[in-house]
């Protein structure tokens, strides 16, 4: 331990002398209060330190102690269902220490040290150990088996002793190596270093989100990365909440990075009451929360992203599919900017440091589908919210993010104002995963690709026609073109729009997604024919079946998709009826 002394205090950035043997990014305890900080610059024995807590009344000359290890997270059973601040302090424990308000200088064990877990060894004494060796399992929740695998920092050796099956606290030694190194259920990993895996794989499996506009029009792959940019109140958080609730990942890491406290509380109160349709267990049993809200110290906000992604990689390395929600990456970028400003660095665009794109790239690069050290398949999918100032996507964070993600779900102010949710614009969004995922869908539902491209085509045509209508009004268009407008309207109301508050519709299983589209497109096809045969559009648009199709999303439950096939028959019947009356009119 080396001791230094504070020489300058400038907000959350302080300077200290006498830490000659400290390393860059080492953790330090600053001042009499022992606030946690991290060395971010070293010059001779002058260290620049960012502090993760409020340092009101800190004085020059107070001691600084270097812990000689990088900022790390504790990884082990008990992470699931927890809520941490940006540097993995357990918020409920802190509440026990200082009440409803956070005080500086608090410390708490990230994992429950008293709880006993049932350990089942998978290693025998005398067997070799190396990075990637599974040494045991613990049933962490009903659906999550915690696989304890030696990480890349473990030297190759043999197991001298292995604890027998039984109940252990996390501090108990489970494996002892030939060299006498002891291993417990907990390991530590530096947050700024990506965890080691064997190799990256190409991802061809969708992450099914249950949101139609995403799954069908702009799908994301497991191990992919996506950005959700949008001005305030356009629905970034709601979209991320919806995905966190219903997507088919095994584990969710939700990072509230510089956003509202109440949104965290909402997750904490709502998730335990919701049932994961795939496991039948509460959603909290697959969720980990990192909450560093906008009013909590800004340096800890900068780290919160790394804390979250490291935990995600840890579960990936057990062979799970993990989805990370980061809300909002812009607040993280602003934390970088604020700290960079304190360091008096040369700013690049809009005051952001020149290394912003590098940091963004490093972050999104931590997404991926991998072969783990243990030779299993696991993935981390990153979905990052972006909050562009003034809702203007030309600003640096959105622009740089675009370079490193492959899915762009652009939220549109006009859609949000019209309460068309999710306000994901079908004009400005894109997904580069679609091609990779077609094979997957083909095997399940061969119509997927056709339905999808037809829908896109109608929406594209509608956009062109809407420009004309804006100048001359709809009456100038022939009926075939006005039908495009009508169908597009049905796609928007009956398919794209999906309220998170609708009990039936808040998530939508893939068979229902294709069924709804099939209904709308069947209607469209038959209407096209009817128009050719002389039926006026007005008659078609006032068919009661049209309203029924639009309402189908809310009336047809996910479990009863099969019953929806009858609607297609009804549509055919309605048009057959229309055909005979039209014919009748002509012959009369």
């Amino acid at each position, binding site marked *: 331990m080396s001791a230094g002394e504070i020489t300058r205090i400038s907000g959350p950035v302080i300077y200290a002398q006498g830490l000659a043997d400290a390393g860059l990014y080492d953790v330090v305890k600053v001042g009499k209060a022992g606030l946690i900080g991290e060395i971010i610059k070293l010059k001779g024995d002058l260290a620049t330190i960012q502090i993760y807590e409020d340092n009101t*009344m800190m004085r020059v000359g107070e001691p600084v102690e270097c812990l000689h290890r990088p900022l790390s997270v504790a990884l082990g059973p008990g992470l699931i269902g927890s809520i941490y601040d940006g540097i993995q302090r357990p918020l409920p424990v802190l*509440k026990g220490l200082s009440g409803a308000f*956070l005080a500086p200088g608090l410390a708490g064990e990230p994992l429950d040290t008293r709880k006993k877990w049932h350990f089942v060894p998978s290693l025998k004494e005398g067997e070799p150990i190396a990075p990637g060796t599974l040494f045991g399992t613990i049933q962490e929740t009903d659906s999550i088996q915690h696989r304890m695998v030696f990480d890349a920092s473990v030297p190759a050796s043999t197991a001298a002793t292995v604890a027998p099956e039984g109940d252990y606290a996390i501090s108990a030694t489970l494996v002892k190596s030939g060299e006498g190194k002891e291993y417990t259920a907990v390991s530590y990993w530096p947050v700024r270093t990506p965890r080691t895996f064997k190799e990256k794989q190409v991802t061809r499996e969708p992450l099914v989100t249950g949101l139609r506009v995403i799954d069908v029009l702009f799908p994301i792959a497991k191990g992919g990365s996506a950005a959700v940019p949008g*001005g305030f109140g356009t629905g970034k958080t709601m979209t991320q909440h919806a995905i966190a609730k219903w997507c088919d990942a095994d584990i969710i890491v939700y990072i509230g990075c510089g956003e*509202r*406290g*109440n949104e965290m509380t909402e997750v*904490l109160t709502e998730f335990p009451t919701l049932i994961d349709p795939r496991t039948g267990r509460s959603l909290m049993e697959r969720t980990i929360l990192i909450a560093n809200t906008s009013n909590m110290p800004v340096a800890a906000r900068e780290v919160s992203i790394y804390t979250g992604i490291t935990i995600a990689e840890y579960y990936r390395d057990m062979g799970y599919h993990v989805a990370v929600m980061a809300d909002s990456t812009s607040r993280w970028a602003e934390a970088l900017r604020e700290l960079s*400003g304190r360091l008096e660095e040369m700013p690049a665009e809009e*005051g952001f440091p020149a290394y912003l794109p590098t940091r963004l790239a490093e972050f999104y690069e931590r997404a991926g589908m991998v072969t783990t050290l243990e030779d299993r398949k696991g993935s981390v999918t990153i979905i990052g919210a972006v909050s562009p100032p003034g809702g203007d996507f030309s600003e640096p964070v959105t622009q740089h993010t675009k370079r490193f993600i492959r899915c762009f779900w652009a939220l549109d102010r006009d859609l949000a104002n019209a309460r068309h949710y999710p306000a994901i614009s079908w004009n400005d969004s894109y997904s580069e995963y679609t091609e990779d995922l077609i094979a997957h869908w083909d095997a399940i539902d061969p119509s997927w690709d056709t339905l999808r491209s037809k829908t896109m085509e109608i929406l594209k045509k509608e956009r062109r026609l809407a420009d004309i209508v804006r100048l001359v009004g709809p009456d100038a268009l022939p009926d075939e073109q006005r039908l495009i407008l009508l169908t597009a309207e049905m796609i928007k109301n009956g398919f794209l729009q999906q309220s998170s508050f609708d009990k039936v519709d808040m998530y939508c299983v893939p068979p229902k997604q294709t069924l709804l589209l099939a209904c709308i497109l069947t209607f469209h096809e038959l209407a096209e024919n009817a128009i050719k045969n002389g039926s006026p559009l007005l008659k078609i648009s006032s068919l009661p079946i049209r309203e029924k199709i639009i309402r189908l999303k809310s009336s047809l439950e996910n479990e009863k998709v099969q019953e929806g096939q009858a609607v297609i028959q009804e549509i055919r019947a309605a048009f057959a009826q229309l055909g005979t009356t039209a014919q009748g009119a002509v012959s009369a």
Partner: protein
Amino acid sequence: MRGLEYHGILRADGPIVIAEHRENVGFSELVRVRDRSGEYRLGRVVDISEQAIAVQLFSENTGISIDESWIEYLEKPLTFRVGDGIVGRIFNGLGEPIDGYPPIISSDLRDTNGRPINPSARVYPRDFIQTGISAIDGMNTLIRGQKLPIFSGNGLPHNRLAAQIVRQAKVLSGESQFAIVFAGMGIKYDVARFFIDSFEKSGVLSRVVMFLSLADSPSIERLVTPRTALTAAEYLAYEKNMHVLVVMTDMTNYCEALREVSAARNEVPSRKGYPGYLYSDLASLYERAGKIEGCEGSITQLPILSMPNDDISHPIPDLTGYITEGQIVLERDLSQRGIYPPIAGLPSLSRLMKDGIGEGMTREDHRDLAAQLFSAYAYVRSVRDLAAIIGEEELSDRDKIFLGFGDHFEREFLAQGEFENRSIEQTLDLGWKMLSILPESELVRIPPRLIEKYLPRAAEPEAKE
């Protein structure tokens, strides 16, 4: 040390004073600077090195000289003295009484910066506050513990609206202790007077705590005014279990003071010269709203800000909107057409509405009704754009019906008297009456069951104007 003054400073630069580092001061410590005329100013230590310290003053620097200044270190951050006696009193931005009555007697000093609420100790706000204003109750419901700003512009009736909300706000589920905290930053005397009179007329003046830093007081004082006010609010809410409504006006003046100090410190600006930390700084105020576990009280914030040039994408409204739980936007166009309150139908939003309305809270049809009104009104706006180009006569019949709906909606639903207090049932029924103008097949956002139950059938559809 208290009572010990150090003579002389090194430099004075706007609101920043640089002095030699002669006593081991703490970061953010409160200091007192005396000038040659014997006048005192308060300031805060914002940077400390081994040789020098930087102090940010809370008032004008006129009269500060290099040689004839004396600094005293007060060994604490800026605090506010809390106690039962604060209710009914008027303070300046720094928390010193300015109403001519004696100082508050209490030994309870609170750091005005407050402390962040532990997110796991928050209670999610759900209690509906009835303001009696249809545009708010029906479409952008206010919830106890919410932070819901009013985005306004010069000359728009934001003060009248705020006063009406304060006058009419009530929670349907029984009575409880309430208080109002008012923070005035850089506002004119007559605006302050307007609020005092209005509080007096509605008989709540004795429950108001006022913090006034008027237009003629130093702009820097505005930086502490909301913090002092929120310290008072936290005391009343979390220790006295009161429901506190905090009105803060005008946040634009606050932000400008922040920019002034940032410029004086030569910080790298982000947009329009505002500091990069404007978001975090505003969050440190707005996030002090809410409810916490084990405590009856709550803090509801109603900040008012004027959008420079009516521009909602200006950094001040923009960053506010990113932090608060929605916004009530006032629209000049509505106001010019004589509609009060001129609450813009589309850009206004209440994010906490979703969990505070519906069966058992307001009425089962509330959510769907509001969604339908929003979507119909959004369509009205696009029809109006079209009509402006091709002329109203050229519109389709359907579009003409929507135009009629839009007109009624603005004149009957949005508009109401400044002293008209509508119950939530009246508001919702009025909403249905508006919808009855539209063909029933247009109401696809509402389940048929609710249409059946609530849509007035007898009413003659009024198709055209």
